[in-house]
């Protein structure tokens, strides 16, 4: 049994179900209490679970994430919200050095089961500090898991797995996907962290896409099918753990690769995957690998300019045609 629901609803369900299942799970962050979260993800949660388990914090991102680390190493499973994913930089020490490394540097004596929930991506004029997709910053945050769902089913299943994970997880929901809808299984639905999903099967070219760009890649694949080009779309569902086996299997099948994400090309998620493909699948490549991403600039605030920066379906189609 499945139902068609939005990603926002899927996330809502995941949070409510996990809060009900495990009373060591609790949620805190800016505007998440009565207001229900700036993106509505905690709507009704404080009313249902009480102010002890869902509460507002001061505007203090370092404290929010660091407190989650402190709560996690003393037996709880906190979920903290950073609102805009750009704010990871305010709490960078707490994410990069504390959440990610506390277990390792203290000899594996602790587990750090926390989720950092943040909304990423361009959403219509939010400006350079409220529109970024920062996942690739965390390739080197060894100890941290980073998840980027593209469908409501993935969002629900990945978030539930993230909450149950004994590792710290940065969960990045793209703002533009909140109102997209899709089939989500009824009842318990878990998606394991670190398993890529082949969203569409094909034989001529592989598009590896993240988050919002998975939808654009699927549109591109449909357009290209009309030209007789068979496209496989692989969604890594995050950057760590990174399921290179699934990506490499697809590359070996098609011999051609386009990598697509909303973050700027330089230092974006594709850079590391491209490096691994050349190291591990060079012999199968029939043409150079192409990257599709934003130009190397901060996101402009003007909506018109923002829409020129965010890669679109036509950019992906053009990239595929260049290498086919």
């Amino acid at each position, binding site marked *: 049994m499945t139902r068609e629901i939005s990603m926002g609803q899927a996330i809502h369900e995941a949070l409510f179900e996990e809060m009900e299942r495990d009373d060591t799970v*609790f949620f805190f962050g800016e505007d998440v209490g009565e207001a229900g979260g700036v993106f509505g993800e905690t709507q009704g949660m404080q009313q249902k679970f009480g102010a*002890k388990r869902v509460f507002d*914090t*001061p505007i*203090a991102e*370092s*404290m*929010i*994430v*660091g*407190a*989650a*680390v*402190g*709560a*996690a*190493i*003393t*037996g*709880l499973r*906190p979920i903290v919200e950073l609102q805009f994913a750009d704010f990871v930089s305010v709490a960078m*020490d*707490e994410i990069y*050095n*504390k959440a990610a490394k*506390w*277990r*390792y*540097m*203290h*000899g*594996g*004596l*602790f*587990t*750090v*089961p926390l989720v950092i929930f943040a909304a990423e991506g361009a959403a219509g004029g939010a400006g350079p500090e409220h529109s970024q997709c920062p996942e690739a910053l965390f390739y080197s945050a*060894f*100890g941290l*898991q980073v998840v980027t769902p593209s469908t409501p089913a993935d969002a629900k299943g990945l978030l539930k797995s993230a909450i149950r*994970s*004994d*590792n710290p997880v940065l969960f990045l929901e793209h703002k533009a996907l909140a109102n997209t809808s899709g089939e989500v299984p009824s009842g318990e639905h878990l998606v394991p962290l670190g398993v890529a999903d082949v969203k569409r099967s094909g034989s001529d070219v592989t598009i590896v896409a993240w988050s919002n760009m998975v939808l654009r890649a699927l549109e591109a694949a449909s357009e290209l099918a009309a030209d007789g080009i068979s496209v496989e779309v692989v969604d890594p569902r995050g950057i760590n753990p990174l399921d290179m086996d699934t990506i490499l299997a697809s590359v070996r099948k098609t011999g051609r690769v386009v990598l697509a994400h909303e973050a700027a090309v330089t230092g974006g998620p594709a850079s590391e995957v491209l490096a691994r493909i050349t190291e591990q699948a060079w012999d199968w490549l029939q043409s150079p690998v192409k990257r599709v991403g934003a130009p190397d600039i901060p996101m402009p605030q003007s909506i018109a300019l923002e829409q020129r920066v965010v890669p679109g379906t036509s950019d992906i189609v053009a990239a595929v045609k260049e290498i086919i």
Partner: protein
Amino acid sequence: MSDSLALYEMMVRCNVWEQKLLWMIDEGLVSGFFHAGRGQEAIPVGACSVLREDDYLLYAHRGIGYLIAKGLGMEKLFGDFLANSAGTTGGLGAGIVHIAWPELGILGQSGTLGGSFPIATGAGLSAQYRGTDQVVLTFFGDGTSARGTLHESLNASKLWNLPVIWLCENNGVGATVANERMLANQDVADLALGYKIPAVTVDGQDVEAVQSAVQTAVDRARNGGGPTFIEAKTHRFRGHYEGDPQLWRDRDELRRLRKEKDPIVLFADRLVADGRASADQLASITTSVRAEVDAAAELALAAPPPADDRIYQGVYA
């Protein structure tokens, strides 16, 4: 042993342990990556003496008194500095920053100074959430009090009435720079006033004064009275790290401090003057502690180094 002799013994233990470690540094067995705690023993010993085993500790990097006084085996401490399998981190860590022991509430230390403040807040939040009466004792230096994380954490701890004790060891110098050139206000306890957190300043060379102040704070926290801020004014007898030439320091003043402000000597004198102990009793405590420390060092020195695959263990759960 009486409580006051136990305090004395614990301070001696910290000092003798450190002397042994300095010997290990001289012998090339341990890196010089150590920030000696000589002169400040009264603070961790007095403070930890009123904690329960299940209370939480986030420690600072000056000396190892916090850990010995919280009950951690001295051979484990040596093992962490020797970077071998006797250490709490099983040979991964090589010094003060990495030591932890969850069973004793020792939550570790943040390598970035000030990184412990939010974690202490979270541990306090956790105790409150779980409905226990555990308290969190957080040590930090005056230099670290300049971090913004302290502001965020003081605010939250008062706002949420968390059982956290903020204990600043103010030795007048942050690393190698005197506080006159670092802090707009060198009376660090004043920071707490801005958050309406009860604050007290104590003589950090007086182990009983520290004990009494922390006892009041612990009672307040356990009874739901929220956080307390304690500033212990103290003196550092050695450099920031071993090998620090301390060029900023007046040698005569340092000699005077060592002579007049040694917390162990001051306490010994008081115990004898009060008739709480005889000089012979105190001397025999030192003798037995030396034997205890030597035995711990011997155990740790005999432990094997970690295997190469140790580097891959514990990245993820």
